């Protein structure tokens, strides 16, 4: 990397009042042809390009992005990272990602502010208790750290939670994954972009895909707002717009795109030093380094591509937050936004080849894709480079909807996914 970030580069640039930092990635015009094109410049797409260049020596590749990189769901999520999934396939996938997260800042030479502050999932009824205990056991069998906490231990770990037995959904306990935590989402996109660019990957922003050119059963390239770009391998990582791209190639996917909302409060002093999620009442909260409470709400039940969402969803989430954390009752919310998430019927992603040669899809991450960003990119890069899935994403193929071999995390991960 020509411009390595370190304490020395920081000191050096301090002498010139930080006016001579070089741009972190180029702004190239598209070439006529690439060995592979990634559609979608979010975290997953940029990570895919990064690992294609780093591990598979494919450097003549491009990432095309209709807006700016990291401006979609990468910059709209609540930055939670965990791997305590029930099923073996999911545990393998998400823990692969978590292991990469643990060394990512060093690997990218870019501080992604990965903070293993722990993620606690609360149980509010007997079924929750049974499900979460079962999940704890399943996690341990898969080598993933997980502990069960009773109500007193929950209160001790996060003292601001209302553990009174008199509330509508009392806290009966919870699970804790200590290796889980948060990261700075923008930095993930920027770090991967910078790393990929340094290895020769062209990151082309403000370039919307308008069509996919097919020749019989294989792909030939993409039609974009910056003209036709030829490539025999196309990886689609378009999140909420995956179906739109699939339709261009004459393909139908088992996805529904829905708005998922989040909101942040005004910044306050440190009050919550972990991430607490509650599936039953659908509320999850953490605190950013700036001091804002980061609150995740749910999805709307209907298909929509507007990055807004309904008011009643936010209202429901805030009611739950206030019952669990009465201390937040006078907090003011600063911003609310929505991102479009593509949800699979089994709430698990698709990282797969398709029946069209050279066309690959990485989609269906639904409401929980951020945590998987490095693992998703690594495995998708493997799939594109070798034209076959890695063993960790073999179960996440598109044919599972035909064979019926679903990875049903809906019940296991519940709504806050």
């Amino acid at each position: 990397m020509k411009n390595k970030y370190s304490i020395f580069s920081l000191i050096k640039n301090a002498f010139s009042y930080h006016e001579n930092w070089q741009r972190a990635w180029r702004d190239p015009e598209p070439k006529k042809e690439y060995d592979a094109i990634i559609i979608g410049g979010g975290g997953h797409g940029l990570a895919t390009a990064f690992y294609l260049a780093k591990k598979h020596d494919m450097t003549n590749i491009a990432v095309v992005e209709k807006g700016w990189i990291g401006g979609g769901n990468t910059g709209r999520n609540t930055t939670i990272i965990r791997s305590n999934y029930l099923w073996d396939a999911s545990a393998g996938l998400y823990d692969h990602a978590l292991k990469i997260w643990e060394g990512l800042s060093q690997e990218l030479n870019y501080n992604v502010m990965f903070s293993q502050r722990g993620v606690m999932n609360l149980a509010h009824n007997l079924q929750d208790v049974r499900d979460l205990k079962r999940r704890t056991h399943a996690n341990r069998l898969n080598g993933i750290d997980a502990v069960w906490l009773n109500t007193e231990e929950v209160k001790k770990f996060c003292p601001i939670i209302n553990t009174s037995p008199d509330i509508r959904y009392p806290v009966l306990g919870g699970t804790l994954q200590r290796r889980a935590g948060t990261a700075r989402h923008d930095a993930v996109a920027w770090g991967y972009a910078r790393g990929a660019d340094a290895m020769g990957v062209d990151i082309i922003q403000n370039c919307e895909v308008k069509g996919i050119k097919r020749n019989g059963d294989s792909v030939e390239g993409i039609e974009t707002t910056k003209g036709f770009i030829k490539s025999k391998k196309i990886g689609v990582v378009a999140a909420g717009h995956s179906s739109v791209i699939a339709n261009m190639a004459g393909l139908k996917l088992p996805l529904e795109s829905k708005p998922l909302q989040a909101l942040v409060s005004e910044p306050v002093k440190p009050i919550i030093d972990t991430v607490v999620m509650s599936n039953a009442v659908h509320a999850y909260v953490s605190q950013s380094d700036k001091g804002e409470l980061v609150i995740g709400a749910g999805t709307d039940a209907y298909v929509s591509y507007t990055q807004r969402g309904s008011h009643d969803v936010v209202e429901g989430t805030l009611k739950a937050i206030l019952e669990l954390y009465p201390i937040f009752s006078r907090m003011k919310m600063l911003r609310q936004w929505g991102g479009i998430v593509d949800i699979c019927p089994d709430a698990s992603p698709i990282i797969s080849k398709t029946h069209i040669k050279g066309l690959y899809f990485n989609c269906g991450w639904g409401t929980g894709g951020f945590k998987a960003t490095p693992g998703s990119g690594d495995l998708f890069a493997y799939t594109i480079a070798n034209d076959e899935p890695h063993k960790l994403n073999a179960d996440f193929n598109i044919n599972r909807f035909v064979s019926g071999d679903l990875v049903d995390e809906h019940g296991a991960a519940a709504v806050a996914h």
Partner: protein
Amino acid sequence: MFLINCPYCGERDQSEFSAGGEAHIVRPKQPTELNDDQWAEFLFMRKNIKGVQLERWNHAHGCRKWFNMVRDTSNDKIHAVYKMGEKPPIK
């Protein structure tokens, strides 16, 4: 989209309704004769259109009747509602 014009009750708040997904997916007449691909198509594959789409909705906290809707998913504007069994009005 905060108000939905239920064909039976008139205009009501959206929170009274539940969404039932893509409309006009016909249940197979001879289920035993379907192969796995056809089942996957019926059960899972969705158009998921960005633009004008036909959907089923239920007035769950009202008359509890199902009806259809023509809605633009790119801006949440509702173009028309029509009863079950009726043909969709021209887009």
